[in-house]
């Protein structure tokens, strides 16, 4: 098995895919018999079995094999698909997933539940086959209809005038399918002459009644040597060819020309194995994710130092160095792009797990849900993807728990019994947008408004003036839940506030909209990557600050008398728009001139930041703040500029 170690990663990756296919198709099958889904499952289980056998993961193979037995009965329509059967098959997939996990971490796929599950599957097989012994037939039931039967083969053919030979073939003991081997020998001999008799008969061989020895009488002009070659081959232990003198059956007297497997072959095998070690060529490799992160860090350092070199070259005006740096620069940006690409993963990696969750939650709640996934091929950086799974899972559970109504309730409201949950993703300019919408009851905005007042988040007058969108934003406040009871699958205090903060930690944002009676829609907007961003470098009170370029709207000049006071707040009028002013004095001290205003936006809210100087635009690597400092509101991280200056990167989301 050790020689297969190199394939372990590939096995795991592909088995995971197959596992997902099985789960997905089982869920389809549960909705009603679907030939396509059965074929899909069958194929995936079969592939998984084959791969496990190749790797020597016997338990996985055994479980898949038992699953195949049951599936073939379903395919042959001798066993009906019922919820308990689907439950059992899903339980098998759970075990398979755990096996794959185990294999990934170096195990051999051992799992304590295999025996139990295999027994359960066997019970179903017994039930399905009943008195009819269809198990073996069912497997071939899928095969296309056999071609027209050949003429019965035991019958003597017409020898004509050609000499007749008796060919004796012994199939080697290690042959897994001796009967098939015999059949190949017969086919090869057919090409050289007319086969007169075979023992056992062709029909018997076809039915599998074959041990190891085949005897054929053939009329042929090809000669002894040609017949011998035609009959020998892989897994053929010995061949003897002798002329048959018609009438005088003295086959025993003829000197047999045989080709027993020799010592040479053993030698051949060894050489081949040696060559194989040398010649192994692997196109795909799996890389430890931490190593990838480390490479990414090094690339980031390169990006920083590239900037630094550039500054030095500019300072000293060395032409050769300029040239050399521009070459390095090109390589570095290519390397950076490549690293970004390597880290991009299709969203399906996490989306594919959701159908199963939807099924379980819906079943638990007694709801009927149709789950649609779109745009799973959209790619995201791994670092973003990692943090996305849990919040999405939470939203999906929420959608079923609180969004989609019970079938009876839906019917009374004149809707389809089956609720619709749609998860879709697409690229929108530089961002990836993920939408989750349901056609459930929607959010009762008045209830949220009332609750917000109860919680003291707003006075009743203020609350009554808020727009629907502003009211819905309360849902993302910590501890805010309109659900009456905590269900055992979702809820439990972990609310939308956690979703919001996890998405914001990924530099993304969440929006919710809802139409009572028609459903709720969550929209997550995410950056495709969070490691390297474009920033604008500005100065306030001689200090440099970096502001992510995607939140900058414009830069305008500012005169002191343009600033109006509204209560304790300041604002300016910019092209008929009232723009609140936010000062970063606490962090950086008051601006010396403050005659420039930078307009930033987060979602639909804008504000202006007075500052002294705009230095320029640059691509920087954002490093998270050290654990010693802890997270600091308003600052998402720091970046090191080419000249070694450490500059804070302002987090506009928390500021506006």
């Amino acid at each position, binding site marked *: 098995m050790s020689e297969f170690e190199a394939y372990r990663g590939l*096995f795991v990756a592909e088995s995971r895919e197959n596992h997902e296919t099985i789960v997905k198709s089982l869920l389809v099958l549960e909705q009603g018999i679907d030939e396509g889904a059965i074929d899909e499952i069958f194929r995936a289980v079969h592939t998984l079995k084959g791969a496990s*056998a190749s790797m020597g993961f016997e338990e996985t193979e055994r479980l898949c094999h038992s699953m195949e037995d049951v599936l073939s009965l379903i395919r042959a329509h001798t066993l009906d698909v019922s919820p308990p059967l689907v439950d059992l098959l899903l339980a098998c997939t759970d075990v398979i997933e755990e096996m794959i996990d185990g294999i990934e971490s170096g195990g051999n796929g051992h799992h304590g539940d295999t025996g139990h599950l295999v027994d359960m599957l066997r019970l179903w097989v017994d039930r399905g086959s009943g008195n009819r012994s269809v198990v073996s037939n069912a*497997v071939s039931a899928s095969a296309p209809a056999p071609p027209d039967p050949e003429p019965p083969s035991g019958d003597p053919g017409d020898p004509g005038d050609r000499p007749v030979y008796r060919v004796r073939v012994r199939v080697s003991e290690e042959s897994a399918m001796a009967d098939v081997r015999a059949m190949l020998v017969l086919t090869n001999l057919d090409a050289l002459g007319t086969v007169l008799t075979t023992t056992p008969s062709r029909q018997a061989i076809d039915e599998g009644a074959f041990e190891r020895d085949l005897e054929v009488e053939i009329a042929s002009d090809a000669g002894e040597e040609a017949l011998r070659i*035609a009959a020998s081959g*892989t897994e053929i232990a010995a061949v003897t060819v002798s002329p048959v003198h018609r009438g005088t059956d003295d086959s025993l007297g003829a000197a047999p020309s045989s080709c027993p497997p020799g010592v040479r072959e053993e030698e051949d095998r060894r050489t*081949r194995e040696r060559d194989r070690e040398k010649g192994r060529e692997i196109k795909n490799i799996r890389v430890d994710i931490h190593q990838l992160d480390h490479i990414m860090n090094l690339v980031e350092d390169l990006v920083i130092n590239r900037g630094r070199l550039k500054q030095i070259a500019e300072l000293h005006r060395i032409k050769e160095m300029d040239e050399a740096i521009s070459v390095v620069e090109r390589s570095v940006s290519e390397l950076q792009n490549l690293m970004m690409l390597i880290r991009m993963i299709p969203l399906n990696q996490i989306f594919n797990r959701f159908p199963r969750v939807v099924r379980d939650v819906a079943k638990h709640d007694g709801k009927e849900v149709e789950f649609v996934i779109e745009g799973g091929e959209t790619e995201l950086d791994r670092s973003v993807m990692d943090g996305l799974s849990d919040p999405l899972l939470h939203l999906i559970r929420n959608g079923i728990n609180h969004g989609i109504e019970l079938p009876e309730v839906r019917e009374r409201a004149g809707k389809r019994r089956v609720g619709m949950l749609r998860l879709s993703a697409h690229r929108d300019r530089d961002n990836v947008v993920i939408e989750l919408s349901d056609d459930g009851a929607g959010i009762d905005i008045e209830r949220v408004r009332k609750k917000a007042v109860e919680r003291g988040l707003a006075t009743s007058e203020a609350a009554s003036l808020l727009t629907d969108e502003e009211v819905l934003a309360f849902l993302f406040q910590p501890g805010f839940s309109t659900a009456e009871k905590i269900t055992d699958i979702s809820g439990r205090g972990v609310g939308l506030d956690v979703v919001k903060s996890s998405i914001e930690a990924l530099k993304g944002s969440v929006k919710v909209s809802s139409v009572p009676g028609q459903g709720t829609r969550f929209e997550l907007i995410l950056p495709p990557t969070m490691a390297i961003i474009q920033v604008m470098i500005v100065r306030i009170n001689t200090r440099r600050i970096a502001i992510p370029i995607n939140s900058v709207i414009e830069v305008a000049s500012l005169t002191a008398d343009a600033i109006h006071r509204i209560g304790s707040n300041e604002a300016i009028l910019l092209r008929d728009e009232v723009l609140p002013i936010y000062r970063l004095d606490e962090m950086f001290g008051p601006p010396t001139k403050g005659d420039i205003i930078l307009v930033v936006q987060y979602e639909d809210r804008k504000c202006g930041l007075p500052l002294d100087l705009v230095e320029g635009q640059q691509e920087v690597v954002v490093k998270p703040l050290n654990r010693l400092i802890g997270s600091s509101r308003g600052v998402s991280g720091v970046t090191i500029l080419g000249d070694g200056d450490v500059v804070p990167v302002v987090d506009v989301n928390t500021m506006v």
Partner: protein
Amino acid sequence: MIWCPMGRILIVDDTLFMRTLLKNILFSGGHTIVGEAADGEEGIAKYKELKPDLVTMDVVMPKMNGIESLKGIRQFDPNAKVVMCTAVGQEQMVKLAIKTGARGYIVKPFQAPKVLEEVKNVLAS
């Protein structure tokens, strides 16, 4: 064998895992892998395009299974050398394949020496 030819081989299998495994085995035996196909239809198309000396053909595949693909290839080239890749339990399918014109078979889990031997023998035939 007196003459041991190295072949230009097309691999038809729906899983990357099996294709990679086979590719490495065949490569180690000195053969050239001229192409890979992931289903039966693609197998026929690639055969027409590449005219390989030999095809290894998986039996169970999506879209078009190995036997249908074998038929398609034999229709295009009656002398095509196709070796079926099969697993224990699929004897009936393999027999059908042989009646349809397959020239040999290899059994999963693959054993490199056996695979190479079968390929060598079929190439020489």
